[in-house]
């Protein structure tokens, strides 16, 4: 590894990044973060409408 210092550094940076990402719970999934959701949602779930509309419906089958 000493004979390839730049590649070794590159590889270790990759490992550290992957390790830190795993530790911090990085994900490729997109979620929408919404602040200050009222506590009343627990009593009236229908009052909250998710801003998320990320999935596309597929009524597939062959």
């Amino acid at each position, binding site marked *: *590894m000493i*004979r*390839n210092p730049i*590649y*070794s550094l*590159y*590889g*270790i940076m*990759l*490992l550290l*990044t*992957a*390790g830190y*990402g*795993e*530790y*911090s*719970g*990085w*994900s*490729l*999934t*997109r*979620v*929408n*973060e*919404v*602040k*200050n*959701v*009222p*506590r009343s*949602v*627990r009593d009236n*779930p*229908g009052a*909250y409408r*998710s*801003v*998320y*509309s*990320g*999935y*596309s*419906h*597929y*009524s*597939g*089958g*062959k």
Partner: protein
Amino acid sequence: MTSGPAGLVPKVKPLICPNCGGTIDLRGFGQTVNAICGSCQTVLDATTPSLAVLQQFPKRARVVPKIPLGSRGAWHGAPYEAIGFQVREITSGGELFQWAEYLLYNPYRGYRYLTEYDGHWNDVKTLRSTPQVISASVIRYNNADHKVFQNSVARTVFVLGEFPWQVRVGDPVTVRDYVRPPVMISSEQTGSEITWSLGEYVSGAAVWQAFNLKDKPPEVKGIFANQPSPYEGRIGRIWKTCAWLLVLLCLTMVMMALWSRNETVFDQKYAFDSARSGEASFVTPIFELKGHPSAVEVEVDTDLHNNWAGFNFALINEETGTAYDFGKEVSYYNGTDSDGSWSEGSSKASLTVPSVPAGRYYLRVEPEMDAKSGSAMFSTEAMHYEIKVKRDPPSLVFFMIAFFLLFIPPIYVTIKTFKFESRRWAESDFAPVSSSSSSGDDD
């Protein structure tokens, strides 16, 4: 610069050309056999007092040596003087290739040669021992095998200066080159006489520095037969490093997987009937997410069959009111047709919410199906499903990305190495590899 033990600079012996009357300087002392007049380029016999004319030319284009004859330089730790110059050519594949040869002389060390082709220089000396012929394409010298590169008939097309052998313009000689970069071993056969020489690739800058020449050395074009690859030895080293990094990656991955909390913090079964009117959304009981900010995985396992369902989720922090909105569709279809049985999708799905801080959370769940899908058409009255929430599940995604990224540099070096060698051997009559990519000039 000194030129001998006493530090004396040897003087040249001036002679008169019998053809044109021009002055000829002999620098090779008594060893010169042929001398060429610098004015009319007549080849003269330097062993006769009258300088007998051996070869004459009515009118010839003059080639100017890049190392002027008479130039002295420190080469291999000794002073050498350029005393002879010749241009030789071969025809290969219908193309004419010309290169220059400079004869260097030191009265105590003898002769050496410098050859130049398209800016590529070789430091050449005559071998005193004959290389061992291993096969038609390999010779062995100093316990190292050298591969045959080219077989051709070379002709001298221009000479200047003086030579310790009989030299004539037009003389043919069969040349066979063997390479093991940076070394090239050449055999030159005239009749039954074979002369072996060993050339070592040197930079033009080294030649220019040694002989204190003006301007810059000629620009290097293409890749020469024995030009050392800038990637020499790098393939093995970089793949070895890659292997070490992959081991480290695996160890880190295992450690992180063992270290991850992977805790199921919520697990509940539900049913959904799309035919039923009213608000479909509901909230789950509160569950606690512990530890440092990390991922949360929400998994849905349904009993869907030839149907689909959509789920809108909101993971809501009860204390701060921060919500993470996300959705997932689950669909599973299968059947049988003329091709046999088939299936699409899955009745399970999961989604990972990134970097969720610790706290008390609940899920708002809003399932969705086609109204008719849940009724008689598909003979399904309701969908049953299970929601499972995991805190800090082990994930391989970023390690997998790192895994692939680790391969980029070694693959790049490998491709460049093979490309370099491909271009080198594209010039050979004995190419062991494909030379289809030889036209590039990015090196």
